[in-house]
């Protein structure tokens, strides 16, 4: 059976349809969920997509965390179900306290849309994926960063095409080149790069497939458990 993956649409979500398309392409059953809904329509996994939820006029993700649907997202996370936050979705997960750290304006100030590479900190794989954000600089207090490192919560770091860590390849000034983090349990993943825009070989590199494979296999595992 295909795992069912909910994609939440907040007012101002932009990449929700892209996430739905990517789930379908990668073999999942996508289902669209509205921010004001109380549940996740029976989904085994959930994606909080990119965009500018509620306009992001206060602070990115700061209002979205109060959306009714977020209770269901928290419940799924607490039950060990896979939760993926992409870009604005990552910001929302940080604001909601499901992931550590915060995201602030890029070091270079300007919005940047660019294909970059990230290194998967578990497998060492180098994944070509695009970023497109103005507030993607990952920050945390020194203690927080130590804890994130110590608990092996860093999921992805910005890197050179051959996987080397170098500030020249850090597009936004993120602390320790962090592009994505997981929670300690490993079932909640947030990342600034957009894996949903890197799954279709007709459009470019497919570094994002890896992330969806993780999401779908975790969802399958949760279903059979």
């Amino acid at each position, binding site marked *: 059976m295909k795992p069912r993956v909910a994609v939440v649409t907040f*007012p*101002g*979500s*932009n*990449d929700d*349809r*892209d996430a739905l*398309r*990517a789930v379908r392409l990668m073999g999942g059953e996508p289902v669209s969920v509205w921010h004001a809904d109380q549940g996740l329509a029976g989904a085994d996994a959930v994606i909080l997509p*990119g*965009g*500018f939820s*509620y*306009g*992001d*006029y206060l602070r990115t993700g700061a209002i979205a965390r109060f959306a009714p649907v977020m209770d269901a997202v928290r419940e799924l996370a607490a039950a060990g179900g896979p939760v993926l936050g992409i870009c604005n979705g990552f910001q929302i997960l940080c604001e909601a306290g499901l992931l550590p750290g915060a995201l602030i304006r890029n070091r270079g100030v*300007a*919005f*940047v*849309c*660019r294909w970059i590479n990230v290194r998967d900190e578990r497998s060492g794989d180098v994944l070509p994926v*695009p970023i*497109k954000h*103005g507030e993607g600089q990952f920050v945390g207090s020194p203690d927080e960063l130590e804890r994130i490192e110590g608990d092996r919560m860093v999921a992805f770091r910005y890197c050179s095409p051959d996987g080397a860590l170098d500030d020249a390849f850090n597009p936004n000034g993120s602390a320790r080149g962090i592009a994505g983090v997981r929670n300690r349990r490993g079932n909640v993943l947030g990342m600034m790069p*957009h894996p*949903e*825009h890197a799954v*279709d070989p*007709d*459009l470019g590199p497919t570094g994002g497939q890896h992330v969806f494979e993780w999401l779908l296999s975790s969802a399958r595992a949760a279903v059979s458990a």
Partner: protein
Amino acid sequence: MQPPAEPMHRALALTDDEYDTIVALLGREPNAPELAMFAAMWSEHCSYKSSKVHLRTLPSSGPRILVGPGEDAGVVDLGDGVTCVFKMESHSHPSAVEPFQGAATGVGGIVRDVLAMGARPAALLDPLRFGPLDDARNRYLFAGVVAGIGQYGNSIGVPTVGGEVKFASCHGPNPTVNVMCVGFAPADRLLRGRPGRLGSVLVLVGASTGRDGIGGVSVLASRTLDEDAHTSRPSVQIGDPFSEKLLIDACLELADRGLLEGLQDLGGAGLTCAVSESAARAGLGAELDLDAVPQREPGMEPFEILTSESQERMLAVVRPDAVDAVRGVCRRWGLSASPVGSLVEGGGLRVRHRGDVVAEVPAAALANEGPEYHRPAERPRWLDRVREDDPTGTPLPGSLEDAFVAVLGSPNVAGKRWVWEQYDSLVQGGTVQGPGADAAVIRLEGSLRAVAVSCDGNGRYCHLDPYLGAAHAVAEAARNVAAVGARPLAVTNCLNFGNPERPEVMWAFAEAVRGMGEACAALGTPVTGGNVSFYNESGGSALYPTPVVGMLGLLDDYRLLMRSAFPALGLPIYLLGRTLPELGGSELAEVVLGKVSGRPPALDLETEANLHQLLYECSRQDVLGSCHDLSDGGLAVALAESAIAGGMGFHAALPASDLPPWVSLFSESASRAVVTARLGRDRELESMAAFHGVPLARLGLTGGRTLRFEGLFDLDLSDAIAVHEGTIPKLMSGRRLAG
């Protein structure tokens, strides 16, 4: 004794004659709100009063054209039940006054034009012109415009996939900010030919109405900007992209559910324009109740509510029994939806405010019967002198290599990554090829077909010969689209000129329209609409005549897309087309010789069409490894760009000819492309070129880390990249932006 006060109609930029016409139409003197409505609708911006007589000559019909000029946007039938809606518009005047908001609201406006046809906005392109970047104010304008486009486009989730940026001194005081939007709609959801009926309710959807943007069309867009332009800042609207995003989603849902009879955007002239056009289109009158219009502040005067250009509003034309459903959908998206009027018998537009009728005017006269001028045109006297000064015979002052580096690094030619990395080019998942290419390519959902889009204009050519220059703009845009393997289908345009009351400007305008029309007719690409922006001059200096063409093409299978980058080592490189000694108006002449003079290159439209046909066939047969059209900087720049994009060098020998090497390298002769053949396909390419009557010359091979022009000079690929990619960032980094 005090001087007599200026009559109000003059303050609103209406002439005495226009005022007399209004009096005759009404059979009485107009009151203040009525005068404000006429001033807005009969402004140059809304009424096209100086340009209509010329625009009518453009070819505008064809088998694929579903909607031509005169509606919110043109519509082209792509087949299989899919239509493409597209349009270009100018927001130069507001951007000159406040670059960030001016450009941002320009994006918002063009997106609502496409939305008004029931289409989902799917791509944006931005043709921009500024003064040279060594000037702090030009940097401020450039940075502000790019940031404004980025902030708005990124926030509403419409990818910005292309455009062009050029620099010339005359654009310093007159920056040009054009925005093009492309959208798609299922043919059966297209909102056209359904103008509403007697009793239809007018529902104002979206933002509330404030005092921003009052007089935008008559004061800002239809007059020249003077030294005190910054005092016009209150006339610039402020954008709220989040509201726009909700408006897009809500309107598409309304259209999907079949709840709309019609949809009208509120842009220039605000509510006055939307209501009078809705009524006129239906052949009816309208009642409008200003008290029902949600207002941002108390005490707004009727003329303010009527002509406010507050952003992020749409007017839905709805059956009475669908009003509740419309309000429900809008509520879900957090938008207000207020019935503000209805379509009624007769042709009058009656406006009520606090129970009183405050204006009563014929809707059709307001919307469609504005003045129409045959303004005098006169060929400028300086033209012959400038044209006679042909730079083609002038030897280079320095080495060929120096000239190459100067041209490759000139801001016009240099890579624009600094600009387009600030734009989200990927959202919506349709971008097969984004910025920095000959043409952007957007696929149709669930299909192998894609549209190719390009924007082009060449100010120098149009300065030297507006007729030929505008024809070149069409040819180059079509060539760009053909270079990716698409068939050019249709055109939108934005015609940016100076003060039409000056005969020289009017002559250039008429010539440009004539050239554009002939080229569009010859290439089979009708003009589906566009926008005219006059009065782009300040302190007596006008911009170059700047007709910008937006070309739409169709690609049968996007997997056969041709890219400009050299894809592999050891591929044979060919030049397609004939090179003539044509450096008039060229990049080399301006950058190296300091001359904007001579005649632009000749253009033979049959030769041009033959090249397009050849490229189309090459794409279908998958014969080419790469394909790049030639334009600014000629062969030298095209070879360098293909090398830089592919990350590999080449060695190339110029074809045998009588031309001096710098002429061969930098001539901007039209109808040419640089291609590589796939391995083993070179004979096939040669015979196809012969069949289509396109001259072809083998130049050399791809590969290596050097750009090698045999017998002339070498340049390291890394140096070429540094020059090409580094120019704009270097000019923009660490420099103070003037405010």
